[in-house]
């Protein structure tokens, strides 16, 4: 009996992964980004949340290599004198937490709805109509509306404290139809197969067939869309933060860092906006590229192009 690790080492998946320079490169970059984001307290040269180390006299220092730069702050400082590199790392951590959290919530709601509507005929019509209508409104629009409503309900002050879980809920609620549709489609394909019939003949209950037999077989398309959904969720969060419906400036995500820097771009302090922007784009880009690879590998026929 070979161990799981050996089986993995000999698998075709790993082989084709190592043969694809784009996928491998994106994976390495993503790993570096994720590790430095979650290791931010250790990796980052300064602590942007610690107000005792921040000096307003350090405000708007240019990056180290340009005129007026200081070697203490590699990528310069923002308007409050925080080190850009450190705030970016901490901000990326917030963005990643929200992105992953939101995707977990989406997957949770979406899988339940998808299973129910794929397996229980009576619910199918109504659940899928809801999903269709919500999708036709575009996830951004729904997220912006829910965000706006919640902000009105809580007021700005109350919003700041609960921003992270709220954003997860907002983005999760806005994007679940993607999962529901994917899961439903594969449930419909799976339920006609013989193993399901066999399970029914043995006399297993519907719930058991649904969860133990059909669900595991629908998970590969879920994995396919999950990577891209994480990128989407991070992008939605950045958009919401940019509109002032997301993370507050004192606990910034990448999106709110970009917003905060936008005012200063006219006075020439481009680094406050551009560096978080580059980081955000590269994060989303590598996730998308990896997602493309996973999609092509697991399910070459699911999408085209």
């Amino acid at each position, binding site marked *: 009996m070979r161990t799981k690790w050996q089986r993995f080492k000999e698998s075709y998946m790993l082989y084709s992964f190592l043969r694809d320079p784009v996928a491998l490169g994106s994976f390495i970059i993503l790993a570096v980004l994720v590790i430095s984001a979650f290791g931010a307290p250790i990796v980052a040269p300064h602590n942007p949340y610690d107000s005792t180390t921040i000096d307003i006299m350090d405000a708007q220092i240019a990056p180290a290599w340009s005129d007026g730069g200081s070697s203490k702050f590699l990528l310069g400082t923002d308007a409050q004198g925080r080190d850009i590199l450190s705030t970016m790392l901490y901000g990326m951590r917030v963005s990643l937490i929200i992105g992953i959290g939101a995707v977990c919530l989406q997957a949770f709601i979406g899988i339940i709805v998808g299973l129910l509507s794929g397996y229980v005929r009576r619910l199918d019509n109504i659940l899928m109509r809801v999903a269709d209508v919500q999708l036709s409104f575009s996830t951004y629009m729904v997220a912006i509306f829910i965000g706006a409503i919640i902000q*009105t*309900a809580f007021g700005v002050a109350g919003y700041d404290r609960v921003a992270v879980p709220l954003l997860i809920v907002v983005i999760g609620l806005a994007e679940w139809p993607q999962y529901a549709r994917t899961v439903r489609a594969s449930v419909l394909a799976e339920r006609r197969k013989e193993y399901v019939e066999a399970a029914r003949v043995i006399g297993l209950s519907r719930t058991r067939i649904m969860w133990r037999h059909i669900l595991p077989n629908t998970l590969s398309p879920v994995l396919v869309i999950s990577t891209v959904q994480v*990128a989407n969720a991070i*992008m939605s969060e950045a958009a919401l933060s940019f509109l002032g*419906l997301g993370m507050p400036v004192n606990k910034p995500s990448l*999106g709110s860092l970009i917003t905060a820097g936008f005012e200063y771009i006219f006075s020439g302090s481009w680094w406050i906006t551009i560096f978080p922007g580059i980081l955000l784009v590269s994060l989303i880009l590598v996730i*998308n590229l990896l997602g493309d690879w996973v999609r092509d590998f697991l399910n070459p026929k699911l999408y085209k192009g």
Partner: protein
Amino acid sequence: MFAFAVKRILQAVVVMLIISFIGFAIKHNFGDPVRELVGERVTPAERAEIREKLGLNDPFMTQYVRFLGNALHGDLGQSYFYKKSATDVIIKKAPATLELVFCSALIIILLSVPLGIYAAIKPKKWFSRFVMGSSIVGVSMPVFLTAILLIYIFSVELHWLPSFGRGDTVQLFGFWDSGLLTIDGLRHLIMPSIALSSIMLPLFIRLIRSEMMEVLESEYVKYAWAKGIKPRRVWWVHAFKNTLLPVITVGGVQLGIMVAFTILTETVFQWQGMGSMFIESVERSDTSLMVAYLVFVGMVFVLVNTAVDIIYGLVNPTVRVAGRK
């Protein structure tokens, strides 16, 4: 076909009812219209009198039905901030947004069709690879970041283009402030419409390319080649015509996303359209205007989606059969 159309329209009505209900529930629960109308310095007795007069003490459903009745007459309530009818505020702001969406749509159509087709016909050429490569970067780029980069390059560094506002406008038909007819207005329009189109353009290029590639593989195109028809004719008349159908459907659905992105684009460029009006109304907790925008945008979406579905049903009969359960 008639049954299909009726069914779609009924669905649209139900969706509109739900949207208006959600909108009204928000309005009902958040924000106090009396305080917004008369301010803080009014005695509680007078306040109660105003509440009674406005019908705010009626049961929820009675108020909802009244709201619905008014909405059918085009009255979506008073904006707390502007102190005038929310419908008027929206109509005043709508032309700016529509012009922006129109110009972006123009850019998207004019660029995505030739680029997508080229990338499908000559997938191995370096230019196609470049187009596909930049399209995935484009998909990963948030629209507000594109906008900020454009502002930094063309306004801050090069001083070529203005970075905010609509510039000179001309009034048409008494209510339509158009920026399309003045040089200054057009100059202001360039960057916002590029920024807005930047999110859809890569998606459309990829969509057109993949549809086109699929069609080029099909039997009838092979037959056309075998007949010895000129490449140009095969590409444009035989293949491209059949890629249009899915592209149109997707395009209709993307309109919603486009409207969502006008909110972002307008915020960056301080474009005086509906999107920035919406964000301002959120900041000022002008619930009334916010709900009016929600209902208005909801209506636009539902109308467009229903129209696209019905047109699609006309063009492609299989949809109708599949939709009839």
